[in-house]
């Protein structure tokens, strides 16, 4: 329903209107961002619907079982919180509760916390306190495996698969890439090819996308190019290792200061990040208010094309 409405809205931009398309796209972005805020405020993942087969209608039971775990998460040292993707994990627990005690979502949250903690333990220079906290967290997670089993039996493989597909939608972000011609748009849609990346870009060779149309149009305009088409993607952050340089603590840890750190230094940051397994970097847009992302690999999995919109 959400996607259909959005698609219809964006189709309207392409087909109708005495209004300039750029203006309509700006409005579409505003509507989309507002919807995202509403979902975020509600603690609910955007297109995920409650799954009847996994719902207990007793959210407090799921939350009660994971209460200790959530407390442990909250008490983690800040540097470790960043490493395990604390916000995402915490929101996953919240989402499970908000979805009527959805046990599959709770299990997804546990899995997400486990993966984050396991990755964080591999970080070099981890101090003893952080290491102990992470090990305690992992032990707690293991003791909670199958959290939903005594609330609601979920054994059917098909249902699990369906639930997994729904949970994949947990971290979708709408982003855009602008091009100067129909030929370029077609080339990008045919498949993002690293042979066309520019290793001299801000974070080195990768595919760069922006959070809103205005920003990417402004970005190309600054360089004297006219954006002719905007390609919208769903950026699927689920399962990706994202270095979020819009988070001031993470940025400081990586010695990154927006608008001050040189491109040379950004490229060095990207090299280290890639060596540590990060495949997406999120950074503040220099031309607008939103965020930009650079994706280094797994393009088919990470970037799902949705619609191409001409820009007047």
């Amino acid at each position: 329903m959400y996607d259909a409405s959005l698609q219809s809205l964006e189709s309207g931009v392409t087909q109708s209107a005495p209004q300039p398309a750029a203006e309509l796209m700006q409005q579409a972005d505003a509507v989309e961002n507002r919807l995202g805020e509403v979902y975020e405020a509600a603690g609910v993942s955007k297109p995920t619907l409650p799954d009847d087969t996994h719902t207990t209608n007793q959210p407090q039971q799921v939350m009660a079982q994971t209460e200790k775990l959530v407390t442990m998460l909250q008490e983690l040292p800040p540097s470790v919180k960043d490493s395990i993707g604390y916000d995402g994990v915490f929101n996953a627990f919240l989402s499970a509760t908000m979805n009527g005690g959805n046990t599959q979502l709770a299990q997804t949250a546990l899995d997400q916390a486990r993966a984050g903690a396991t990755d964080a333990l591999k970080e070099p220079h981890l101090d003893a306190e952080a290491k102990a906290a992470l090990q305690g967290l992992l032990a707690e997670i293991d003791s909670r495996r199958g959290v939903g089993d005594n609330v609601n039996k979920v054994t059917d493989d098909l249902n699990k698969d369906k639930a997994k597909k729904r949970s994949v939608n947990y971290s979708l972000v709408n982003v855009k890439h602008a091009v100067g011609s129909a030929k370029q748009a077609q080339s990008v849609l045919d498949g993002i090819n690293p042979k066309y990346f520019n290793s001299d870009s801000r974070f080195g060779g990768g595919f760069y996308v922006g959070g809103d149309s205005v920003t990417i149009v402004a970005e190309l305009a600054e360089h004297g190019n006219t954006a002719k088409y905007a390609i919208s993607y769903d950026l699927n952050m689920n399962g990706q290792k994202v270095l979020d340089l819009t988070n001031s603590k993470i940025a400081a840890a990586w010695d990154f200061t927006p608008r001050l750190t040189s491109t040379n230094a950004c490229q060095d940051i990207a090299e280290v990040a890639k060596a540590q397994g990060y495949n997406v970097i999120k950074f503040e847009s220099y031309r607008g208010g939103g965020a930009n992302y650079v994706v280094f690999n797994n393009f088919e999995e990470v970037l799902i094309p949705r619609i191409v919109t001409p820009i007047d």
Partner: protein
Amino acid sequence: MDMISIKVRKEVVQCSKCKEPKSFLYLSDFTYGERLVFSNEGLPCAFARLSDDTTYLEYEKLVRQILWDKQLNISEEETLKLIIETFGITCDEINNCKVDFSQNQKKCSFCGSLNFDSKMIESETFITIELPLVSHNEWNKMDNMRKYNLACSMLIKNLGF
């Protein structure tokens, strides 16, 4: 020689060794298939639009063929790096200089150091520069065997054996 006028982002950073300022020029991060080519001195000397360049596709196929023929197993990432770094052999000379895609701008114009401070010393700005577009007239006159041999010797030199 066709020229193109492009607007580039300019950053100024300090050389870590001699403390002299150095300007770095960049295309938009959002460009796809476009490159600035630099001289041995680290200055921009040409512009390439690879996404519209049929010779780039031809050269990619040729390199992959040679790697296959010579049974050279290198990763996809290394292959792409090899293709772009040696692509200059297909380009016409510009002002009597060979086009070399392996060159970059990370070299101090004063002391030759490759190390620079991590922070800019002034806000980034945009400037317009005019550069020649890379062309492939000489390459296009060659027969396939000549192209193969030329590319082969270039790859062997680049791979270090």
